[in-house]
């Protein structure tokens, strides 16, 4: 699974964490990206807009994970654990959307909703 056959090296405490100011810069960057996202969000959604929104989302995600969650500096093992989770989640759930629900195509509900009788009232 996430751990490969070889051992992780012992991480020293010597690696330099960023200074407070650097963290502030990272946060400012995140703020700017969020601003860009909001502006894009007001556009009529087409493939390009959606694509750039998703890209910005990934950038933000990665920035927080790498800087604030220290994945940049910490052991590779942590990164593998997290990535395994993310990739598995992305894999199985995108597979559901694609295969079963044809999420990226048209809607699959064939019966118009108003044709289905309302559920009987259940009292317990």
């Amino acid at each position, binding site marked *: 699974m996430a751990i490969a056959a070889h051992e*992780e090296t*012992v991480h020293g405490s010597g690696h330099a964490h960023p200074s407070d100011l650097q963290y502030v810069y990272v946060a400012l960057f995140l703020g700017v990206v969020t601003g860009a996202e*909001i502006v894009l*969000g007001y556009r009529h*959604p087409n493939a390009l807009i959606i694509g750039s929104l998703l890209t910005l989302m990934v950038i933000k995600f990665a920035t927080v994970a790498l*800087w604030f969650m220290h994945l940049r500096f910490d052991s590779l093992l942590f990164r593998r654990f*997290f990535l395994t989770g993310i990739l*598995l*989640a992305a894999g199985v759930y995108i597979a559901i*959307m694609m295969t079963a629900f044809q999420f990226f195509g048209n809607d699959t509900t064939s019966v118009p909703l108003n044709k289905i009788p309302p559920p009987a009232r259940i009292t317990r």
Partner: protein
Amino acid sequence: MTDTIVHAPIPDQSEGHHTSTGLSNEKLAMWAFLGSECLLFGGLISVFLIYRNKPVGVGPKVSQIYDIPFTSVSSFVLLMSSLTMVLALAGIQRGDHRRARIWILTTAALGATFVAGQVYEFTSFVREGLGYTTNLQSSAFYTLTGFHGVHVTIGIIMLLSLYTLSLRGNLPTEKAETVEIVGLYWHFVDVVWILIFTVVYLIHP
């Protein structure tokens, strides 16, 4: 017989590394847990996305009543709370407990602002006619965002507990890792909101 055995000196004994990899057990556990959480939130997000594409029988669509400006502010607040969280950690790692406390408290306050915003959002959505049971989308929406909100709330409770511990002197610099682990949880919750904000709020058909 055992007293004749001479064991080779164990290299990682001296430097305070107790573990085979030199990584802290607690941090590793937290990362494993976060990996697991990915599948939890992934499931809720995909259920919402799938059900959002379905027609609603009753009530408004969620996307009709989004208050994007307000949600943007909420996202900004949560993002900034990640900054303050990391500053708190940097503080306690330097042994600067005063700053660490200030930033922990700030993070908790920002988190609470976010949750307050969510309560406001939910209330106004309900007033607009989108109750939890109204339609498919509403159930999925409230469950997803509510679940995230509960995570934030638990995070705040942990932060306030840390604050109390720190005030009582039970959070010395050696235990900075406790703050780091709570921080990991906090950032994770933030990262999930980054996903939700884009995928649920900004991109809608």
